[in-house]
């Protein structure tokens, strides 16, 4: 025979005691970030689309010389850098939310998030390096492909 202990009932008035605090404000900050970055991204991306697709010959005008001409100006470097970082963080956090909502098996969630965060790091680092190490007039490139600033 096993000894049976009488079940213990805690005092109903006893306040519930948490062993440790599991809450942090991480999700709150994420929620605020989505709204704040969203407003800034609206301005940055609408400006980006207007300059690249509406002005002049639109998408037909985009080539190496066009991008080179834009990135000789610190204004567009900062614009594109801000757009890159905010859009990547906004998009990554959005997809993280969607994974949390729909992927139920722990291993699937884990791997989807590993792919997501890896894509975030690779694309954000690569984009940042391109904006800052870009040379508008590479040596030996055909002259007719280069922006006009190379010939001043």
């Amino acid at each position, binding site marked *: 025979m096993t000894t049976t202990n009488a079940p213990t009932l805690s005092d109903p008035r006893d306040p519930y005691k948490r062993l440790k605090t599991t809450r942090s404000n991480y999700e709150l900050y994420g929620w605020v970030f989505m709204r704040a970055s969203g407003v800034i991204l609206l301005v940055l991306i609408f400006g980006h689309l207007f300059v690249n*697709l*509406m002005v002049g010959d639109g998408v*037909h005008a*985009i080539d190496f010389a066009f991008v080179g001409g834009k990135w000789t100006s610190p204004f567009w470097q900062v614009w594109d850098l801000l757009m890159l970082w905010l859009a990547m963080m906004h998009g990554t956090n959005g997809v993280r939310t*969607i994974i949390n909502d729909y992927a139920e098996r722990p291993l699937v969630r884990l791997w989807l998030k590993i792919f997501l965060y890896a894509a975030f790091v690779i694309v954000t680092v690569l984009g940042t390096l*391109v904006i800052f190490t870009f040379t508008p007039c590479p040596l030996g490139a055909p002259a007719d492909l280069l922006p006009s600033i190379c010939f001043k």
Partner: protein
Amino acid sequence: MPSAPAGTLYRGREGMWSWVAHRVTGVLIFFFLLVHVLDTALVRVSPEAYNAVIGTYQTTIMGLGEAGLVAAIVFHAFNGIRIILVDFWAKGPKYQRTMLWIVVGLFVVTMAGFLPRHLMNVFGGGN
């Protein structure tokens, strides 16, 4: 946790469908963003490599894809402002349905400004 909810949590109508559209457009834009950073990174390889890849963006089919992308961005942007107003404006939840129709109206106006210009560039006599 059941794999599917026994009853549906989803209430349909404007509130749910705008939420669905916000998710779908958000995911589409995110995947384009990943590709777009990679294609732009080709400026670091050589002018020829960049021009070759960006040239494929200037075909008719991609031109129509760009129109769809801009439509997704415009909806996501305006509906995002609506979400912020639902969250922070005291009367936001009361007027969420009205605000969705304002979003749709602004979307139509913005696309009416963009599409003719873009389609002229895509189908027009340009290079």
